[in-house]
């Protein structure tokens, strides 16, 4: 991708705030996200990072601020000024959302093949044989054996379900994927494999991603840039390596120092 001064950001967040009644959960967050860029939002539980992700992914209406996404033919558009129909279309085509708990992002009572090809069917694809080919291709890409295509995800391990969820989201070649703690709850070795796969896929597909995580290792491995949250505010942002190797803010320093070194 050739970047010029005129290349718009893929997503622009300005002055975003979220509140539950009188309680402020996210305060004055702003950032730009560029095509193919992976941003990690890091913080402890209660920092507001998941609320921020949901607000940016049109799943939770913010109380202030603006979220704009670069629509292919129309430039940056305020996602909350769109109709619900447009937002839903966006979340099925140009966006992906990977939930922490795979069961939240899958249809547990239909086969893996149906899960993976659903978005294509929703877009009007009607050739069963072709749909199965696409499903086979994508199951292989996420390292699930195609022999499992007709099995239901409730027979899959946690790691397999997560990979299935990723395939389901990526099959429409989205430009932006949101991920909420994609590796939490998985065994360490399973995590490592999943992270490797995510890194490969994001590079191959020039995917932009916003990943919420409390695990700095995930940020280090996947993200070019990082945003550190504490009590709903961004206390530090910057290139991942710089922030992790030379943290400026006391809270970031605390986070970095408390990570157990292997």
């Amino acid at each position, binding site marked *: 991708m050739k970047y010029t001064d005129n290349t718009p950001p893929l997503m622009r967040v300005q002055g975003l705030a979220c509140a539950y009644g009188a309680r402020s959960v996210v305060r004055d967050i702003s950032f730009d996200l560029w095509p193919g860029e992976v941003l990690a939002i890091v913080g402890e539980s209660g920092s507001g990072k998941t609320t921020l992700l949901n607000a940016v992914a049109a799943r939770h209406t913010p109380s202030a601020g603006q979220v704009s996404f670069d629509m292919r033919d129309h430039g940056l558009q305020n996602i909350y000024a769109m109709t*619900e*129909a447009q937002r*839903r279309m966006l979340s099925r085509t140009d966006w992906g959302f990977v939930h922490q708990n795979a069961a939240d992002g899958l*249809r547990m009572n*239909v*086969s893996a*093949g*149906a899960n993976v*090809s*659903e*978005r294509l*069917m*929703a877009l009007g694809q*009607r*050739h*069963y*044989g072709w*749909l199965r080919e696409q499903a086979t291709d994508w199951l292989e890409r996420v390292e699930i054996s195609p022999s499992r*295509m*007709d099995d239901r995800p409730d027979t899959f391990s946690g790691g397999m379900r997560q990979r299935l969820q990723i395939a389901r989201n990526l099959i429409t070649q989205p430009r932006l994927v949101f991920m909420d703690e994609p590796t939490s709850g998985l065994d360490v070795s399973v995590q490592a494999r999943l992270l490797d796969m995510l890194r490969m896929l994001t590079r191959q597909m020039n995917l932009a991603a916003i990943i919420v995580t409390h695990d700095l290792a995930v940020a280090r491995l996947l993200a070019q840039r990082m945003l550190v949250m504490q009590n709903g505010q961004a206390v530090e942002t910057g290139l991942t390596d710089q922030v992790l190797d030379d943290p400026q803010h006391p809270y970031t320093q605390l986070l970095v120092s408390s990570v157990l070194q292997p």
Partner: protein
Amino acid sequence: MLPVETITPSLVRDPRINFAYLDERTKRMIRRAILKAVAIPGYQVPFGSREMPLPYGWGTGGIQVTASIIGPVDVLKVIDQGSDDTVNAVNIRRFFQRTTGVEVTTDTTSASIIQTRHRIPETPLREGQVLVYQVPVPEPMQRLEPRETETRKLHALQEYGLMHVNLFEDLAHYGHIATTYDYPVLVNGRYIMSPSPIPKFDNPKMHLNPALQLFGAGREKRIYAVPPYTSVESLGFEDHPFEVQRWDAACELCGSRESFLDEVLMDDQGSRMFVCSDSDYCGKRQAGIP
């Protein structure tokens, strides 16, 4: 016209009951719902369904639609499972005889209104006729998504992925699409509709039909419509297209190989024979009437 042995000619109209039972305000309300349904083919219009003297689930929606459109010069035919003689059909026909006094018939071609449960007549319909279907479950996605608040949104946003996931699963699991009746259709290229539990054999008859097709669901309180000459396509995949049922046998009584056949068990040894489901069609063929 064939002699109508099963119809009691002496059933006269009861003058104490308003014409077609419903009061005029109710008829007006239902007609408005019908007009809206005709203007938006396949879209389910909610209406204030009334209690009728027949139970919910037994055709009250179809009855309310018929009662709202029927006039003194109409000729009414009522069928259930294709036959004029089944208990449900007889009961409903008697209801209309009692409340309207209109002429009734078993002859598909001379009827102006045909109320039906679970079949479309074999004899092709013509312009000016109205086919009123009795519908138990108007929402085609109900088994997949029982919440009406959600299905309403899916229809509004034309998000029908769920329906195709269901068909995909059938093919993956059985090698066939496992729906054989109440097979969902796409109406006028926009709304997915339940055609009522007619066998899929009848689905092609709905497409570009010259007659007006009205659908009434009393218990679920919905009316929908397919105007004449509207496209009605059964869902499927390009490489697994929609297929109708076929029999290896012919009708034992009239010899037809084109109509829907009912299976009749003859004894406890498993021997059986097949006869036309459409009693009027079969009777005419037997009598040599074209």
